[in-house]
């Protein structure tokens, strides 16, 4: 393999790792601030100006706590659980195209770690593995609350992945490719959300469920299950679970921006070229991701939690039929356009 390529990709991977973790850390801060604003409070403001160092203080706190493993817990699975959660949250970002090609040191650098031609399948595969982190952690804790949380998480994921997958298939039908790079490139004119608003809506709701975010945060609802699947976790293992949640929120927002909102495309893009374009593209994607994160948090602090039967009802009886009808109509329209009838 080309050495320069290897170095380039390694740097990109390292950067992505740092950016994902940094974004996740500051999302915790932003979430607390937003919650405070919505509740007419000030929020964290003690660590540094405007509390800007709060995530660092939280991280130090997490590391200094006692790392406790319950006596009856399955020790190895208990340790592996948060690792899997964090690992899957981080590797999803590998296929995300972060921007147009950069031109540095006489080389065209693609801002995507791996342009695999089945990008969407990869994303869905990794998302499905993500539930194992929760499942294993909840089961290994040997605690009924943890187990309940884990069961809820897995049943919820299975229910919502179907509708999510079907709405992603409509996008695949539209673009005729499974590669995320192709999907983004095809949206240079009109974003997919204008063709597929229903699919986007379903995808968004299902993402909330996949992320275990309110109003679908049943796996960790405090009022019923103490802490849900991470009841028995402490110290940085708990920190990893919480961090994984925020990292996957970041990555999911990126995926939504890419599938439906044109990725790094922005209006008036044709006026720029070269590295300026690349940097503006990255900024555009970052702004889209930020807006998604904001909306997800905004929803969390507005809507109360679903009951479990309501959750299942919504998933199987509403979102799945809706996405199937949407898929059918999309397919028919495409068939008509191609003159297959």
């Amino acid at each position, binding site marked *: 393999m080309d050495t320069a390529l290897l170095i380039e990709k390694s740097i990109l991977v390292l950067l992505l790792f740092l950016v994902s973790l940094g974004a996740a850390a500051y999302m915790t801060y932003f979430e607390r601030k*937003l919650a405070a*604003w*919505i509740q*007419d*409070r*000030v929020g964290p*403001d003690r660590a540094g100006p405007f509390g800007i160092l709060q995530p660092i203080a939280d991280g130090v706190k997490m590391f200094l706590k006692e790392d406790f493993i319950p006596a009856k817990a399955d020790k190895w699975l208990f340790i592996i659980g948060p690792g899997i959660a964090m690992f899957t949250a981080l590797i999803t970002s590998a296929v995300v195209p972060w921007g147009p090609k950069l031109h540095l040191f006489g080389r065209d650098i693609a801002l995507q770690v791996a342009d695999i031609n089945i990008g969407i399948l990869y994303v869905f595969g990794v998302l499905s593995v993500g539930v194992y982190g929760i499942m294993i952690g909840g089961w290994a804790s040997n605690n009924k609350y943890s187990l309940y949380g884990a069961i809820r998480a897995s049943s919820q994921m299975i229910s919502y992945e179907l509708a999510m997958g079907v709405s992603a298939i409509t996008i695949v039908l539209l673009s005729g490719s499974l590669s995320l790079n192709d999907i983004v490139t095809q949206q240079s004119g009109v974003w997919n959300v204008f063709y597929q608003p229903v699919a986007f809506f379903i995808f968004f709701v299902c993402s909330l469920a996949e992320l275990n975010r309110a109003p679908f945060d049943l796996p960790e609802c405090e009022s019923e299950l103490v802490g849900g699947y991470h009841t028995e976790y402490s110290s940085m293992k708990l920190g990893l679970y919480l961090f994984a949640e925020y990292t996957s929120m970041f990555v999911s927002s990126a995926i939504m921006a890419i599938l439906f909102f044109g990725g790094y495309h922005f209006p008036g893009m044709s006026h720029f070229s070269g590295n300026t374009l690349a940097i503006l593209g990255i900024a555009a994607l970052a702004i889209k991701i930020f807006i998604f994160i904001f909306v997800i948090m*905004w929803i969390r*602090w507005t*809507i109360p939690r679903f009951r479990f039967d309501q959750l299942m009802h919504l998933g199987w009886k509403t979102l799945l039929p809706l996405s199937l009808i949407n898929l059918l109509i999309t397919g028919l329209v495409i068939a008509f356009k191609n003159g297959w009838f």
Partner: protein
Amino acid sequence: MESLTNRKKVVSDKPMTLWEKAYLPAIISGMMTTMRHMFRKRKTIKYPEETREFAPVYRGQHVLKRDEQGRENCTACGLCAVACPAEAITMTSAERERGQEQLYREEKYAATYEINMLRCIFCGLCEEACPKEAIFLTDRLVPTFFERDNFIYGKDKLVETLDERIDITNRQHTGKRSQI
């Protein structure tokens, strides 16, 4: 029956319409509500830097007053201790010696005077009972300590110092107090 307030609302349990079943309008209106709150003025008082304004009749830490010439008002009659429902006040009395006239106003004075701040309920009955305008509650807060002993306030903490008189004119209006 005639409604006592204008807050009465008639509730109904008629089945939801399709519009209501869609939930989205309700969700969006809820999100608008939270959005409005995001730009509201914050109600937080950042405590160590700012403090809440005290009411003029706030009942905080006690003070044993001196009169205009700097003599202690307290004559150790014990009425405050009798009035105290929490039995927080104890004192011993002593007779004023010749030459102590500039220290104590009456012939008898409190040799020790202790209030247990853990027992005190800050009801203000001691102040009401006092015939000599000696004890008053002020807007000062009793701080926290790690040891219980520290909460027993003696005369060293209760009696106001000559150079730092405690102003109580805006506080309780018992109608029997001197100007200082």
